């Protein structure tokens, strides 16, 4: 009973930690979203040079290097290059860019599974590339992306706990503080934190399901994609 009381008293800090976690996740996903779309469009419609020199190395690096290492690189790198950066910002850059590399994959897959006939039809009406992408390709690609994007949401939310390592006071770190402050039952407190994460993931997924239903294209079925090499998929 005393243990439950501990959780009750720790609730404000845990709540503040949860808010930080949610804010972090939103920042990561937003940065990832904007940059991800740009990268995806670059990979599908951009020149080969930009692709080979810029986009592909970027994606390869941010997908092959673990999130924790990226966090450290940005956090310690900022002082190495004499840039004043808070742990919060370093985390956003590291995880945001990482998410961009994964989201770019998602959008690219969606764009490529839209038949090229759509682009042809748009062009034949007289739309330029920008108009075609904006009015025909993207609206369809974004709808197709929702299921894999829901997966990315879950991953980013869970990985936000890594921000702990560079000192950001998110949910897990708050949990740690409570354990340290009160010599409380660590098992209980961390399990409670895990539960909060679970709820956040669940609620988010439900919202995305609703979004998917709302924007579903009636009658439309998606084709399957062909085989990719391992390095392309991780």
């Amino acid at each position, binding site marked *: 009973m005393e243990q439950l009381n501990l959780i009750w008293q720790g609730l404000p800090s845990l709540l503040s930690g949860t808010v930080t976690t949610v804010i972090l996740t939103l920042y990561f996903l937003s940065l990832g979203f904007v940059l991800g779309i740009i990268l995806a469009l670059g990979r599908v419609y951009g020149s080969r040079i930009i692709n080979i020199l810029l986009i592909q190395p970027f994606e390869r690096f941010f997908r092959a290097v673990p999130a924790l290492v990226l966090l450290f690189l940005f956090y310690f790198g900022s002082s190495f290059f004499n840039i004043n950066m808070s742990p919060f910002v370093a985390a956003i850059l590291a995880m945001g860019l990482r998410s961009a590399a994964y989201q770019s994959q998602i959008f690219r897959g969606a764009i490529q599974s839209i038949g090229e006939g759509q682009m042809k039809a*748009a062009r*034949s*009406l*007289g739309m330029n590339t920008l108009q075609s992408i904006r009015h*025909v390709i993207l609206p369809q690609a974004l709808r197709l992306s929702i299921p894999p994007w829901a997966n990315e949401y879950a991953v980013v939310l869970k990985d936000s706990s890594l921000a702990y390592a560079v000192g950001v006071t998110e949910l897990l770190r708050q949990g740690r503080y409570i354990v340290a402050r009160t010599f409380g039952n660590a098992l209980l407190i961390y399990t409670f934190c895990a539960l909060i994460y679970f709820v956040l993931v669940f609620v988010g997924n439900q919202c995305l399901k609703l979004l998917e239903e709302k924007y579903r294209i*009636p*009658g439309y079925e998606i084709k399957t994609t062909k085989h990719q090499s391992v390095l392309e998929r991780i």
Partner: protein
Amino acid sequence: MPDVILKAENVYKRYGKLEVLKGISFQVNRGDTTVIIGPSGTGKSTLLTCINQLTPPDKGRIWLEDTEITNPKTDINLIRSSIGMVFQHFNLFTHLTVLDNVRIGLSVVKKIPKNEATEISMEKLNEVGLADKVSSYPAELSGGQQQRVSIARALAMNPKLILFDEPTSALDPELIGEVLNVMTKLAEMGMTMVVVSHEMGFARAVANDIIFMENGFIVEEGKPDKMFNDSENPRTREFLHKITELYGGKEK
């Protein structure tokens, strides 16, 4: 004095090692329906996509009325908005309703205000007989209906001519009729049309001019009567014989 609306001169196109068009020249008069026939893979579709520069030709020139399409200085998007195209696989925008599909070219390319655009779109949808399907999505329609919507989409742009790339080849047999009927009506209303097709019945009944292409060349060209009954070239006769056997070429 025939009013030439489309003129192609010495058009060449190759894909990698394969030369698909080997010096194609022809003209289309305003109000005429030209049907291009020939074995598959002889570049008929490529010729169409060269006209609206979806696949720019390697060599040769093409004019739409007085404007040279192939001139790099020409605004190609402007040209495309005056040339309609109907595809074998319809290519309707899947995320848009029928009405939006027809309307989108008007709003985005021609920047026509929404009310006017809606009015024009409804008119065209009426012409193709699909006014009752305005809120449906493409995937909810039959192939024939989808193709008619795509014709309405092309018509809405008020084009100077319409290119048809095998418009009925992807349709189930019982749906071909509804599309051919719309096309016949368009021809009767005076629309200039260039049609790549295997539908010999349509060609015989509606075409003013038939072009037979094989291996990237124009083998023979002429009025339907001459081509079907009195052709000069044995290859034309051979092809027509084969195709009327397969597709039952008696006109309606």
